[in-house]
């Protein structure tokens, strides 16, 4: 009589947990400060006046709701992410289609696209800050002058500063979207295209009814990452505008940083941080689910 064999991998041993423990320990080391932060968001912690420290329940959050600066930051954060994802995914798709076509030096172009992608974002922002420069000496305004445009006060005026941050952000992240979508384009099956050719379809129709639907999971994945990163964009804004001018580029992340490290209101800073965290969590939760469904449909 042969003994019944236990399923090979379904052991109830504690081995996997043991294997995970060093990593979990490191992360738990980070969960402690995290919960400490949640606690701070319920206090009026001033770094410079620790003796005033008091537990004030949800007062920080209630104060947020009445604060016009908060509602501006929230609106700016959300609309920035929305515009960023739409424009960057749109442009990224155009670049991906271009790189996927029959053009000379495709490999070189692809490698070139990686350069902005692996730059430290702060350095990217500094590079563009140098190019935007002052109104007269900046190279961008000089180039624009040949087209009879400008000069633009890039980082100095409210609307142009927002656009400038967006340009810098796009320079660094457009390759990410394009490369994901290019990878997607190259993995598409050829059968639907052959069938379309037999049916006499071409150009826009093929793109609209074959390429786009097949590419959907890749578009959603690229969009998901862009949304999640744009909602908490910080490096570029900090290096390019420090939230200015007139707080125009103060998103929630910058405002949380300012509360904590310029005004030393740790409690209020953490309240801003928690709102941002909830936003990022909600966005990633829904988008990840959406992506999984889309990926299953097309069996990615």
């Amino acid at each position: 009589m042969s003994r019944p064999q236990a399923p090979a991998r379904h052991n109830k041993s504690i081995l996997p947990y043991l294997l995970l423990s060093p990593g979990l320990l490191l992360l738990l080391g980070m969960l402690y400060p995290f919960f400490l932060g949640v606690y701070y968001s319920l206090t009026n912690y001033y770094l410079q006046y620790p003796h005033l420290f008091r537990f004030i329940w949800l007062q920080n959050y209630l104060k947020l709701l009445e604060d016009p600066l908060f509602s501006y930051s929230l609106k700016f954060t959300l609309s920035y992410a929305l515009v960023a994802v739409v424009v960057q995914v749109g442009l990224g798709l155009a670049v991906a289609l271009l790189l996927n076509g029959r053009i000379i030096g495709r490999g070189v172009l692809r490698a070139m696209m990686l350069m902005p992608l692996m730059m430290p974002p702060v350095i990217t922002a500094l590079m563009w800050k140098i190019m935007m420069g002052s109104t007269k000496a900046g190279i961008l305004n000089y180039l624009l002058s040949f087209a009879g445009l400008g000069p633009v006060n890039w980082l100095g005026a409210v609307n142009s500063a927002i656009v400038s941050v967006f340009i810098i952000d796009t320079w660094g992240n457009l390759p990410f979207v394009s490369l994901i979508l290019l990878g997607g384009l190259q993995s598409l099956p050829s059968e639907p295209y052959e069938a379309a050719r037999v049916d006499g379809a071409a150009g826009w129709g093929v793109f609209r009814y074959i390429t786009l639907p097949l590419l959907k999971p890749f578009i959603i994945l690229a969009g998901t990452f862009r949304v999640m990163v744009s909602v908490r964009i910080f490096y570029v804004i900090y290096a390019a505008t420090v939230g200015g001018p007139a707080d125009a580029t103060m998103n929630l992340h910058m405002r949380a940083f300012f509360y904590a490290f310029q005004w030393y209101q740790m409690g209020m800073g953490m309240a801003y941080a928690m709102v941002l965290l909830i936003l990022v969590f909600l966005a990633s939760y829904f988008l990840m689910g959406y992506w999984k469904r889309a990926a299953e449909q097309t069996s990615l």
Partner: protein
Amino acid sequence: MTTFPFGLTVWRWVRRIFLTMAVAALVFWTVFPFFWILLTSLKQPLDVIAAPPKLIFEPTLQNYEAIFIGQKRGLYASTRPDFPNFFLNSILISCGAVGLSFLAGIPASFALARYTFRFKEQLAFLFLSFRFAPFITFLIPLYILFQQLNLYNTYTGLILAYQLISLPFTVWMLRSFFMEIPPEVEEAAKIDGCSWWGVLIKVILPLSLPGIAVTIILGFMFCWNAFNYPLMLAGRQTFPVTVGAIQFISYEQVLWGQMAAASLVAVVPQLILSLFVQKYIVRGLTMGAIR
């Protein structure tokens, strides 16, 4: 009949010209910033702020000299930031963080790739969620804690904080590489009498060496790019290059030329390393979601 092929060639030419222009625009958009920073880094202070901008000028290496000398040579140290030191700090902190992440990450990703157990997916997601949380939620409490624990402005503290960047990445990347190894290979080793340790050391690790190399390089690069944690947790002695480069902006003045030189120097390791991991960068940036 004669006009049709003619029209087609015209259309083809229009299309070709349009495509060429699009490619040229893309190249210009991507490369010009690097080109301009290179020029700026070779300019003397007066040439940098000249209006209109100078394309032809007398190049100088003074900016590079200034950032390489740093503060060590007294009189010649015209710059306030101590750049050579920042560069070494970046290397030290990034290597430390990647090393620590690997010690903890290899067993963790092995467990997540090869075993089924309760809460497996939840635990895997816990690792991932640290990567996507806005850094400020950790930075504020860490800043307060590090002051109390004397970890502020120390390499140990920074390496611990960098775990938030490198550990989730390492676990998810290695897991995706480990999962690519067919389970049959592992079964064979088990039949030969290998324990889990033997399987890991003799089978999994050797077979995924390229993946491990990619993970090390990418992890190093992500740590190199980090700006958020060192901004508040590091001091003048432990600043990495990213925070160092921004020190050229002060209330009195902006040292444009030196900042350009420092930016280029800070990017060199990234450009060299990315040559080795070209094919894997997208995979790394999506934490292994896209192969």
